[in-house]
C-alpha cells in the first residue's frame, strides 16, 4: 500500500460524466483527497504523472461481481481478483452474497471486508444475502448486515420463489431503507436450462431458458416493489421485454434501476454455436434483437449501468460437454475495454459509456463513488483510449474463462487510484 503521497496528474483529458466535464486539465490529489482540477496546477513536492494524450475518468464501479473468497467452485483469491479490478480501472465493486459459506452473517461479511482491505487494491462492497443461506425461507439479519457495511441485500442467482416470503423480504428491507437487488429468473421456467430457448438451443439440443423466465419474475417483483415502495435494482437484464417492463416501471415512478452485462451488449445466442462453453452464462445470451434493445436502453439511460458479471472459474469448470460446464465469464479484466469497443463500434457515445461504468452504477448502489468530487478520497483512472491490447497477454484474474482472451480490444488503464492510493500503474 502506498502512503498518501500527493499526486499531480498533468494535462489529462478529464472526463467526468457526473458533471459533463470534458476538458484538458491537471488534477491534484492531496492527502489522498481530490483537491483541485484546473489548468497548469502547481504542487511542489507532489509526485507527477504525465497524462498528456490520456483520459482521466472516475474509477469504475462494477455492480455485479462474484468473488472467490469464501467460496468453492471459483478460482483465485480476493487479492488476485482485486488486482484484476485495479488493472482494469475498477475501484469499487459490489460482491454477490452467493459465496460458500453464504454472506448471510456478520462473520462472513467481516472476512470479505478484511481480506479485501488487506489486499488494498479495490473497494469491495458486500451485498448481503436477503434470506438465510439464500434458501428463500427465512429473512437474513438485513439491518445488522447493513451496519456491517453491506450496501444492499439480494438473493443473487436464487430468486425467492415463495411470493409471500418475497413480499416480507421487501417490506422488511423497506423498513430500514435498504436497497434490494434482483437477478430475476423463474426457477421452474429455467430449470436445467443452459442457453437461450430459441433456434440455436433447438439446433444444438441444449435445454433452453426462455426470455419469459426473466420477465415473469421481473413483473412479479415490480408489482411487489410498487406495493412495498422498496428501492430496487435489477442485475443483468438480458432481453427486450425486460427493458420494456423497466421502462414502464420508471414511467410509473417506481424507484427502480437496472444494469446489464457487457457480454449481453456484445454477444448474442449465436456465440454458443459450436458448443462454445466460454459463452455459457446465466442469464443466457439471447437474440440479436434483445442485444439491440439492451444497447438502445443503455444509450438512452433506461438501463443505468454496465457490469462485468465477473465469475472467475478454474479451467476444469469449462472442460466438459456444454450442459455440464459452469456458467460464467471472468470479466474484470475486460469491462473497460469491451465498453470502449462499443464506443469504437459506434454503438454508444463515449460520455454515456463512461457514465454507465462510473456515476450511474454508483448512483444505483447508493455509494459515494463514480465521480470526480472534491474533498473525497480520490478514486480515478487514467486511460489510454488509443491503446490496443490483447487481453490474454497480461491477464490478471485467476479465472481465464473469457471468450475475449485473443481479441484485440481498445483502451488500457495506465493508472488507477482507489480511495487515494495508487492501485495500478503501467507504462
Amino acid at each position, binding site marked *: 500500500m502506498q502512503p498518501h503521497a500527493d499526486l499531480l496528474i498533468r494535462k489529462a483529458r478529464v472526463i467526468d460524466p457526473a458533471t459533463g466535464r470534458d476538458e484538458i486539465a491537471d488534477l491534484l490529489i492531496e492527502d489522498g483527497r481530490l483537491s483541485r482540477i484546473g489548468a497548469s496546477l502547481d504542487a511542489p513536492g507532489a509526485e507527477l504523472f504525465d497524462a498528456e494524450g490520456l483520459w482521466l475518468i472516475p474509477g469504475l464501479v462494477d455492480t455485479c461481481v462474484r468473488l472467490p473468497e469464501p467460496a468453492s467452485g471459483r478460482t483465485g483469491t480476493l487479492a488476485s481478483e482485486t488486482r484484476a479490478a485495479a488493472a482494469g480501472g475498477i475501484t469499487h465493486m459490489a460482491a454477490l452474497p452467493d459465496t460458500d459459506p453464504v454472506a448471510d452473517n456478520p462473520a462472513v461479511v467481516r472476512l470479505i471486508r478484511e481480506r479485501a482491505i488487506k489486499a488494498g487494491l479495490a473497494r469491495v462492497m458486500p451485498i448481503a444475502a436477503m434470506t438465510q443461506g439464500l434458501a428463500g425461507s427465512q429473512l437474513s439479519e438485513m439491518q445488522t448486515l447493513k451496519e456491517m457495511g453491506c450496501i444492499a441485500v439480494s438473493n443473487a442467482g436464487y430468486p425467492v420463489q415463495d411470493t409471500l416470503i418475497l413480499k416480507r423480504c421487501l417490506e422488511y428491507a423497506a423498513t430500514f431503507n435498504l436497497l434490494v437487488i434482483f437477478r430475476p429468473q423463474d426457477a421452474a421456467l429455467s430449470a436445467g436450462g443452459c442457453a437461450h430457448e430459441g433456434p440455436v438451443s*433447438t439446433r444444438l439440443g441444449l435445454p*433452453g431458458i426462455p426470455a419469459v423466465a426473466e420477465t415473469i419474475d421481473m413483473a412479479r417483483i415490480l408489482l411487489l416493489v410498487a406495493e412495498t415502495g422498496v428501492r430496487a435494482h435489477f442485475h443483468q437484464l438480458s432481453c427486450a421485454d425486460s427493458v420494456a417492463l423497466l421502462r414502464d416501471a420508471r414511467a410509473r415512478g417506481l424507484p427502480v434501476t437496472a444494469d446489464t452485462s457487457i457480454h449481453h451488449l456484445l454477444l448474442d445466442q449465436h456465440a454458443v454455436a459450436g458448443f462454445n462453453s466460454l459463452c455459457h452464462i446465466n442469464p443466457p445470451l439471447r437474440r440479436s434483437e434483445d442485444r439491440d434493445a439492451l444497447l438502445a436502453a443503455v444509450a438512452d439511460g433506461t438501463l443505468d449501468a454496465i457490469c462485468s458479471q465477473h465469475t472467475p472459474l478454474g479451467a476444469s*469448470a469449462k*472442460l*466438459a*460437454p456444454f450442459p455440464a460446464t459452469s456458467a460464467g465469464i471472468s470479466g474484470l479484466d475486460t469491462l473497460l475495454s469491451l465498453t470502449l469497443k462499443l464506443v469504437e463500434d459506434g454503438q454508444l457515445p463515449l460520455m454515456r459509456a463512461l457514465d454507465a461504468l462510473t456515476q450511474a452504477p454508483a448512483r444505483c448502489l447508493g455509494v459515494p463513488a463514480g465521480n470526480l468530487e472534491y474533498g473525497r478520497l480520490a478514486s480515478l483512472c487514467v486511460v489510454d483510449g488509443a491503446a490496443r491490447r490483447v487481453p490474454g497477454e497480461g491477464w490478471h484474474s485467476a479465472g481465464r474463462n473469457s471468450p475475449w482472451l485473443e481479441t484485440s480490444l481498445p483502451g488500457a488503464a495506465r493508472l488507477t487510484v482507489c480511495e487515494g492510493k495508487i492501485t495500478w500503474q503501467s507504462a
Partner: protein
Amino acid sequence: MSDPSPDNLQLTGTGRLRNFIGIEGLPRHILEEILDTAASFVDVGDRAIKKVPLLRGKTVFNLFFEPSTRTRTTFELAAKRLSADVLNMDIARSSTSKGESLMDMLRNLEAMSADMFIVRHGDSGAADYIARHATPDVAIINAGDGRHAHPTQAMLDMYTIRHYKGGFAGLKVAIIGDILHSRVARSQIRALTLLGAEEVRVVAPRTLLPADIESMGAIVCTRLEDGLRDADVVIALRLQKERMDSALLPSESEFFRLYGLTSERLLATHPDAIVMHPGPINRGVEIASEVADGERSVILHQVTFGIAVRMAVMSMCMSGRETERDDSQTQGRSNATTR
C-alpha cells in the same frame, strides 16, 4: 473465436470424413457417399463369413455414458464385421461425466492405442467436446448426445427411405411425437433437408415441439391429419413414459388417441407410404400393433440397414484418416527432397 467450425472437426483437409459428430456441417455428397458405401455392405450379413477386413488391427471403444444395449450392439456388430477389435465400456454417468475425470478417462483409453471412440452421452455436445479434446489420432463417432444429434440413426433412416423410395426429391416426410427431446428427429430433419426432401413435417402437441424448430427447415403440424396428408414416409418417435410425469402430456391414451399411428389414420397418406420407427416401439402409445407389424412397416429393415450404415461410417472415417496420414507423409517426404 478460435474454435474450429463443425465441418473442420468432421472433415479432413481434402474434404473426407474423419469424425462423424452430426449431419450439420457436412456436404450432401458425404451423406450420399455414406449411403452408397452402406449399400456395398448390406449383403455382408448374408454371407457365410460375415466379415470384411477394412478395420483389421484397429481397436474400437464403445464409450456408452448412457445405457443402450441396442445401439451399442449394432455398433459392436458393425465393427466386428469390419474385423476390428471392439471393447465395450459402460460408464456409469455419475463417475465420469464431469470435467477432468472424463478427460483423464479419454487419455487412458488413448494410451491403449485406440483408433476409434463410439460415444453415447446424455449431454448435448458431448461428442463434439470429445472430438475437440481427444487426440486427433482417434476417430469419434457420435452414437447419440443428449438432444443434439444421433447421426448414424438418421443415416440408416435415410438409407431405408432411399431403399424404398429410390431417392428424396419430391418426398413428404412426417416425423411424429416427442420432437423436443429427440436427437433422432434433429438429425433426421438435417439429413432430409440436405438430401432434398420436399417437405419435412414435425407433428406433435406444442409441449413436445422445441422453440423455433421451423428455423431448421421443418414444417410444424399440431394435428396428425395435417401431418399425414399425402405423406410418403411416416416416422413415429418413441415416447418416453417420464414425459407424462413432467406435465408435457396428460396421458398415454390421449396421446395415442390424438397422435398414435393407426391403419385408419394412415389412409390419409400416400398409398405407398412407408412407416418407420427408430425403436424400441411402445405399442399402443405412438403406434398401433397392426401398423408396427403391418405391410407398410419397414421397422425391422431399419435395424438391418443400421449395421451396414454404421460399417460405412466407421470405414469412411478410418480411410479418410489414413489418406490424411499418407498425404502428410508424402508432403513430409517432398519437403525433405526439396531441402
